[in-house]
């Protein structure tokens, strides 16, 4: 793909400054909590103090007596309307409000509707709820025991086991293990974490009784799918529902699910005829919204003594909380976890995952990660290092030895994925050169001799993004295509509307660049709109790094449809045969006659003023793009850590990230995505984890306990790239938004274990908090 766009066009490969920024820089963004409608009411939510309890009584009389309180909505009210439960994306159902039982702490119990925000907050304290506590199920392993209390007695199956899922070839894997010289085994826990976007979730639901239309301004990453689900659940005709996803203050997967608050706010607006605003506070967001990870993994890797990897066997217990409300494509209860063979050519692999209910909020949403890929990458990248340590080989050598060779693409993995393209050795070599790997190993040896703890960690990951081909991927039956509609106006400016939705990714800029490149019109004359279901074409939304692979492709294809029509108009204007024209330097020219050419601006004008008789007026097109395959971005990361023997603190001294996401639309934006992704990769490695006590009390309910990285812990990330285009994407791009979140944690983990390996340490689970590391230092007699 060319990156020859001139600066006046601002097409592919240009560092075009963002179109979104002028409003954000002036405080003129339009986030959900900024929306104020006439007569708007406010909703606040009563939440359960218990993780597991029967509700014996709800008395709202004191709350209703407060001036300004209009209604208290309970599960019984919703039940009467058939709305006490709603479907999840994973063939499960979840409570909107409970009728008689709560199943996690901070679960929504009732909602107060009042004229003012503060009155609603006053009133929730006056809703009297009587509970009869039940024994909670917190440990997922105990949940699987026969005598465990039942989290979900509403189900036919009277166990806490949700599903069993597997991929790969068990027999072939067993056979490969038998023939291997060496088997390394490691248990890993990937803790429960929370995306904690700086903007919490919320909505303004506004039901117009005259028009019979429900408009919902909503913090959602998938407005179209939400509209369809709302219509199916409530019975409101779909054309009478409008979902608007305005400016969104970060998504990262946490704004994919439908939370009870959204639904109750809609019901409250239907009941009162007033707009109803609901905005979570941070504690509600951290305690009750869906969580990521929480995988208990047991992995075995078989290899020969020379370091040749042969097979991988993985068993996992997945803690899904009280409802299986994971945000995965419907056929993938464990997401894309089976991409776990990573960048390596294994003979065989087998993966099994069991989902289990516990008395916690729903798990299984992403944390800036494409459907469980982070868990997979962490496992394989740790196992490669475990093998290297066992065989006393350099982890870089083991990787080089086992990489899928560049000439083997497209490559069919042992678990059935077809990797589109890759050049793994090139990326690792680049990272090693950039960081001076040999020099670092020398320095490490010197430091070790002095008793200092320095570690070097490598991660050479493969991502799988861009769901997806419709034969494999759907959400509640809706195929995971995506879309773009482009209209070229008579004067040569453009509006493009896309089925995906930005939460900071800069779609208004990058999608305009795609159109600019394809049509040869300047990027500043192209407006991109998204997020309003009344105007944008249907799409599945932005998550799992799918925008560029799917809607980006749709944008290019729609633009090419316009170009096809433009060719006929150009032929008319140039008095030539369409077949005699070529698209060159953003213009149609008569082949071999550069002087006879016409640009898209003139063609656009002609499309409305002077078009040939056999061509329709106008210049617009729409495309619904069904990708033939996923895209497989990859990268090579190297991390250097120093561990303070006096405090146990892990400090990232350097981190080099070489990423390959194929052809790049806007290098400035890709760099920004990688910086942010690396930071959200570092966060669970060093700081973030959600834990519960034995009663199911969540222990990180504010930002004073749940520690997000600040500028102090975050290193100055060093980024670089290789470019291996996707062979099947219209402009050779792959998704990139989550690569770094997926790739960074094992680089840090491998560095920490490497720093301690000479002491006999073979594994430490993330996060590497100072107290955890200090305990290890004490255990090995090296604490200061």
């Amino acid at each position, binding site marked *: 793909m060319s990156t020859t766009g001139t600066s006046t066009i601002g097409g592919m490969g240009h560092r075009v400054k963002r179109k979104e920024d002028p409003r954000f*820089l002036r405080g003129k963004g339009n986030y959900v909590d900024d929306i104020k409608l006439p007569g708007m009411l406010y909703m606040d939510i009563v939440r359960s103090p218990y993780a597991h309890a029967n509700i014996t009584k709800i008395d709202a009389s004191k709350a209703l007596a407060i001036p300004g309180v209009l209604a208290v909505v309970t599960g019984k009210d919703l039940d009467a309307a058939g709305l006490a439960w709603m479907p999840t994306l994973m063939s499960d159902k979840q409570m909107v409000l409970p009728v008689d039982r709560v199943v996690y702490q901070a679960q929504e119990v009732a909602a107060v509707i009042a004229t003012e925000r503060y009155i609603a907050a006053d009133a929730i304290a006056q809703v009297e709820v009587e509970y009869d506590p039940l024994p909670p199920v917190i440990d997922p392993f105990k949940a699987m025991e026969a005598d465990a209390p039942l989290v979900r007695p509403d189900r036919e199956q009277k166990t806490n086991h949700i599903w069993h899922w597997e991929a790969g070839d068990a027999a072939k894997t067993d056979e490969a293990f038998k023939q291997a010289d060496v088997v390394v085994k490691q248990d890993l826990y990937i803790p429960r974490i929370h995306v904690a976007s700086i903007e919490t979730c919320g909505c303004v639901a506004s039901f117009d009784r005259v028009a019979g239309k429900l408009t919902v301004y909503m913090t959602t990453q998938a407005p179209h799918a939400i509209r369809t689900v709302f219509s199916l659940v409530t019975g409101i005709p779909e054309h009478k529902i409008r979902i608007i996803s305005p400016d969104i203050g*970060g998504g990262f997967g946490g704004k994919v699910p439908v939370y009870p608050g959204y639904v109750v706010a809609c019901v409250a607006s239907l009941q009162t005829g007033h707009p109803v605003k609901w905005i979570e506070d941070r504690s509600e967001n951290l305690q009750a919204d869906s969580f990521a990870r929480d995988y208990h993994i047991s992995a075995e890797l078989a290899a020969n003594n020379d370091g040749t990897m042969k097979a991988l066997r993985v068993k996992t217990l997945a803690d899904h909380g009280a409802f299986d409300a994971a945000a995965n494509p419907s056929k993938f209860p464990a997401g894309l976890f089976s991409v776990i063979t990573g960048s390596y050519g294994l003979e065989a692999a087998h993966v099994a995952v069991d989902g289990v209910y516990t008395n916690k909020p729903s798990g299984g949403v992403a944390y800036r990660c494409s459907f469980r890929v982070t868990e997979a990458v962490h496992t394989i990248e740790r196992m490669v290092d475990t093998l290297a340590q066992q065989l006393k080989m350099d982890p870089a050598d083991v990787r080089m030895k086992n990489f899928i060779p560049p000439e083997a693409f497209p490559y069919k993995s042992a678990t059935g994925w077809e990797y589109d393209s890759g050049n793994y050795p090139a990326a690792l070599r680049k990272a090693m050169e950039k960081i001076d790997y040999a020099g670092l190993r020398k320095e490490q040896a010197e430091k070790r001799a002095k008793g200092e703890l320095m570690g070097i960690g490598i991660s050479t990951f493969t991502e799988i993004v861009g769901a997806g081909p419709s034969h494999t991927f759907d959400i509640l039956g809706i195929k995971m295509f995506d879309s773009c509609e482009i209209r070229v106006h008579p004067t040569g400016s453009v509006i493009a509307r896309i089925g995906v939705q930005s939460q*900071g990714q800069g779609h208004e800029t990058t999608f305009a660049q795609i159109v600019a490149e394809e049509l040869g019109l300047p990027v500043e004359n192209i407006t991109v709109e998204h997020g309003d279901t009344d105007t944008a074409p249907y799409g599945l939304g932005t998550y799992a790094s799918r925008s560029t692979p799917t809607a980006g492709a749709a944008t290019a294809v729609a633009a090419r449809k316009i170009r096809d029509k433009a060719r006929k108009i150009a032929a008319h204007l140039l008095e030539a045969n369409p077949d005699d024209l070529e698209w060159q330097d953003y213009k149609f020219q008569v082949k071999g006659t550069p002087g006879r050419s016409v640009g898209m601006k003139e063609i656009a004008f002609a499309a409305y003023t002077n078009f040939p008789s056999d061509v329709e007026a106008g210049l617009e097109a729409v495309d619904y793009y069904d990708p033939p395959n996923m895209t497989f971005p990859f990268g090579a990361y190297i991390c250097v850590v120093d561990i303070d023997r006096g405090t146990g603190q892990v400090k990232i001294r350097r981190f080099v990230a070489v990423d390959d996401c194929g052809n790049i639309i806007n290098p400035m934006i890709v*760099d*920004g995505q990688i910086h*942010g992704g690396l930071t959200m990769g570092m966060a669970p490695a060093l700081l973030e984890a959600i834990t519960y006590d034995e009663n199911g009390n969540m222990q990180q309910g504010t*930002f004073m306990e749940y520690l997000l990285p*600040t*500028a102090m812990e975050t290193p100055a990330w060093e980024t670089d790239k290789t470019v291996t285009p996707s062979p099947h994407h219209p402009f050779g791009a792959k998704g990139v938004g989550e690569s770094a979140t997926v790739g960074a944690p094992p680089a840090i983990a491998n560095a920490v274990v490497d720093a301690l390996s000479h002491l006999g340490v073979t594994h430490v689970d993330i996060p590497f908090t100072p107290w955890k590391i200090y305990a290890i230092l004490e255990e090995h007699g090296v604490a200061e």
Partner: protein
Amino acid sequence: MTQHVKLTLNGQPVEADIEPRLLLVHFIREVANLTGTHIGCDTTSCGACTVQINGVPSKSCTLFAVQVDGADIRTVEGLEQDGQLSPIQEGFFEEHGLQCGFCTPGMMMTAEAFLRDHPDPSEAEIRQAISGNLCRCTGYVNIVKSIQHAALRMREGQAAPQEAPVTAEAPR
């Protein structure tokens, strides 16, 4: 029970009868209708609500509006002057210092006040200065560059009058 407050907001006098418990951030967002100041955590941790109170960056989610009666408050809406982006806004634009934009107003209010006292800061000083402002999108790399860009612009802006040739009559 209400209390009367009168303060200056971005150079304009604002007064209102308010509940004593009204948080400053809600006063700014819902009484004065300036929604550029955001709420991210309620515990003074994230800094999305940072405004300048008498020039000092302060988190408006844990202050009552009545506590700042008479104060001079500046919010993100007060940065732009005469249609010109301020150096800090220009820095964030040029260096791609924002993605979702939610933390950006608070981040800029902190950084701008910091640069007034530290015209030529080191990277470590910048990182320390913004450590009370959380950003989930950018990984801070480009925010640091944005602040460095603004520092340079502000130094140039201040240096200009000194370097300007003296054309007025010599002082007597």
